[in-house]
């Protein structure tokens, strides 16, 4: 502060001078030109709604002038604001030019006033917010918390089809006898269709058609391919007959089939 004595060329009263210096010394403390404008505006000691934008523009411009005379470097946005305010000032002072496009000086001034009022209101709101009771400072959460254990309960399930297939598997094992197929590696559509017609009657739910693969057809590539193709063709056939519905979630996703609810009645 004692350094300020050197700047006696400023022709102002002591208090004004000190105030201006405080502003300038604080220039880093301003959160941009709007913040500075708000601070300057407060020195008008009127409600922000009644503030004189013209006077504010002058205050700002003289602040910038002063900063320059003190060789204080101002950030670019402060200078942009100064240029804009100089423009605004001229608009406010000169009679409106009917030729000119764009908003009038009054409109621009009104918007600036709105911005200042809004910023000021947000400042106050921020202060009110921070003055509220805060968790961990004024009120507290539970000190001893109990962990909520995630209990994973496994529920086993089986369908009637599973049960019957299992039983069938056991029974066929009993009366197993050598069996010769003409074309061992090929399952025909008729065979698949015959089988699927019977099976589909037991399943009310969506079932992956691959689970309809006949036993023993999944082992080798050729047999599996043949059975898969026949099963798929048979499934389509059943859908065509209106006895089943088929769906697939995505490309290469499992294909599901289910018995179609009878709607012929």
């Amino acid at each position, binding site marked *: 502060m004692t350094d300020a004595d050197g700047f006696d060329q400023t022709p102002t009263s002591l208090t004004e001078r000190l105030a201006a210096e405080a502003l300038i010394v604080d220039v880093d403390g301003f959160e941009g030109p709007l913040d500075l404008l708000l601070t300057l505006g407060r020195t008008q000691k009127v409600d922000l709604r009644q503030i004189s934008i013209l006077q504010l523009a002058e205050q700002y411009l003289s602040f910038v002038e002063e900063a320059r005379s003190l060789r204080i470097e101002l950030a670019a946005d402060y200078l942009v604001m100064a240029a804009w305010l100089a423009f605004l000032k001229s608009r406010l002072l000169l009679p409106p030019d009917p030729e000119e496009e764009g908003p009038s000086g009054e409109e621009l001034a009104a918007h600036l006033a709105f911005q200042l009022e809004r910023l000021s209101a947000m400042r106050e709101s921020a202060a009110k917010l921070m003055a509220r009771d805060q968790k961990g400072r004024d009120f*507290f959460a539970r000190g*001893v918390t109990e962990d909520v254990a995630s209990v994973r309960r496994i*529920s086993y399930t089986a369908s009637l089809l599973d049960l019957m297939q*299992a039983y*069938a598997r056991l029974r066929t*094992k009993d009366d197993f006898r050598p069996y010769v197929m003409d074309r061992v590696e090929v399952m025909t559509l008729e065979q698949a269709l*015959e089988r699927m017609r019977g099976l589909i009657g037991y399943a009310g739910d969506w079932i992956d058609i691959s689970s309809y693969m006949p036993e023993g057809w999944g082992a080798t590539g050729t047999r599996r391919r043949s059975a898969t193709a026949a099963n798929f063709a048979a499934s389509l056939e059943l859908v065509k007959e209106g006895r089943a519905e088929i769906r697939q979630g995505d490309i290469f996703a499992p294909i599901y089939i289910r018995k179609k609810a009878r709607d012929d009645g």
Partner: protein
Amino acid sequence: MAEDQEPQEESLFTAPPMAEQERMVEAILFATAEPVTIRELTGRMPHGCDPAEALVHLRKRYEGRGVSVMKIGDAWAIRTAPDLGFLMQREKVETRKLSRAAIETLAIIAYHQPVTRAEIEEIRGVSVSRGTIDQLLEMEWIRFGRRKMTPGRPVTFVVTEGFLDHFGLETARDLPGLKELRSAGLLDNRPPPGHGLDDDEGDEDSDGSQPPLFDED
């Protein structure tokens, strides 16, 4: 914050009313991570307070509530009422398919009930692990039936109401018979020679040498 000091100074002579002291003890017990001793309560509350008495009131207030004021060693804490411990669990139910061994055993019981373990093994051609039976018992899909009047009086297994319920059957006799299974195409596929080689089936158990533990997981 500084203002808070003043009532404390004052209360050297006039302690807060008991109802207020009770509130204080309540808040401290709630927010503190460890059980709190009377000594500590005294230290934290304004002078002249009687936390021991406040605790008596507080304890009574929480009687029969969802949490209770409990003494732990010589300290006090608020804890969940013991009968509500079950609420501290979040149950996640995971549905899994029954193992092949289990489903086969179940099928045999359903079709042949009442059936002994030896009979099940005879039909499956493989020994039945204890785990499989236990699992089915636990699921309440099978239960013990009456003992067989054969030497050794072996226990039998039968299916339960729960089983019928799950499979949508009125009685076990509603299960499709062999003939129906065959006409449904469930019996017409004979296992090819070398059935055991079927390597895309993970839980093969037709081979008698298999240890009967495979289905426990």
